[in-house]
């Protein structure tokens, strides 16, 4: 791809020297323009992936990562953009396949896609109050009312935190990431919050 033409047309774009593919950190206000430019001028005609990210230590912590594929010369490019006020412009008008990806990113991270034609949740139910893939959300979940009030009235069921200790699928040994709770790691679970 023509890196120079891209960085000259969009001067705020930084080449991040990605190890597996060409990677750019882009200004989120320009995201849709860059995706359109790459599709029309540089042949990146397929949206391979769009996902939300929570970088945890950065400010702002939320962002969007887009993988584009040039189907002619089989070249990938990765764009990542940090959100401004938890929002980025939608690219679903340029690549219609982004529609459900953006709904998922909204559902899981609370990233708002400005101009999205159908900004609803896609996996969790509509009334769910949290965005579960954010790093500050516990894997076990937080107690909220059951999705259907009439079923909850009959069964007395709520959406309750899942047990994290013990169970049949305990992983043991080896180094594991500290970002997620593990069954053998009792330092934080449904009884003791993460310190």
């Amino acid at each position, binding site marked *: 791809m023509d890196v120079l033409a891209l960085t000259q047309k969009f001067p705020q774009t930084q080449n991040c020297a990605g190890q597996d593919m060409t990677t750019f950190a882009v200004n989120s206000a320009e995201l849709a323009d860059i995706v359109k430019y790459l599709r029309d001028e540089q042949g990146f005609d397929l949206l391979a992936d769009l996902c939300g990210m929570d970088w945890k230590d950065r400010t702002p912590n939320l962002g969007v990562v887009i993988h584009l594929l040039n189907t002619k010369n089989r070249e990938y490019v990765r764009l990542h953009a940090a959100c401004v006020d938890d929002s980025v412009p939608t690219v679903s008008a340029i690549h219609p396949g982004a529609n459900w990806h953006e709904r998922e990113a909204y559902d899981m991270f609370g990233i708002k896609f400005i101009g999205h034609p159908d900004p609803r949740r896609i996996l969790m139910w509509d009334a769910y109050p*949290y965005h579960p893939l954010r790093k500050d959300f516990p*894997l*076990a*979940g937080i107690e909220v009312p059951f999705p*259907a009030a*009439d079923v909850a009235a009959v*069964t007395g069921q709520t959406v309750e935190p*899942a047990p994290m200790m013990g169970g*049949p699928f305990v992983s043991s040994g080896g180094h594991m990431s500290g970002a997620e709770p593990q069954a053998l790691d009792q330092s934080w679970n449904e009884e003791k919050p993460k310190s």
Partner: protein
Amino acid sequence: MVKSDFGYNSKIEGEVIVTRADAVVNWVRSHSVWPMPMGLACCAIELMAAGGSRFDISRFGMEVMRFSPRQADCMIVSGTVTYKMAEVVRRIYDQMAEPKWVVAMGACASSGGMYRSYATLQGVDNIVPVDIYISGCPPRPEALLDGMMLLQEKIRQEGGSLKRTFRGRTVDTKIVS
């Protein structure tokens, strides 16, 4: 069937069968359990295998998978029940006509299985009464057949088949929509 239920000698007693109404009704019910395949995840693949010719669930009178809950007797919950789906499972259960039974097939339906997460109901028995739990992840079709035979045994031992209340609980049709 328990042999003593219908044990008679036609040469001595004539062409007459004496039995209890419960025994006859339960015998009929246990041999025509029409399942409602609540296939939610990979257990449903094993459920389909049980319906195929190798395992052949029709040997037990259960081959008539009914996708309408109004025509089904036994809901086989095969797979992971998410909280979003739990509402649907309960509504379908409520739409089934009494008498009805529920089989929790596999680890996920029984206890949430390996899905210890914010999205997964930790066992379908939180929202519907379960008659038979089948272990496995997923269970083999033989395990499903074994569970269904256990269910048949359970049906045969039920009492009060003709009452308005069923198994001690009044027939609840509040959530039918």
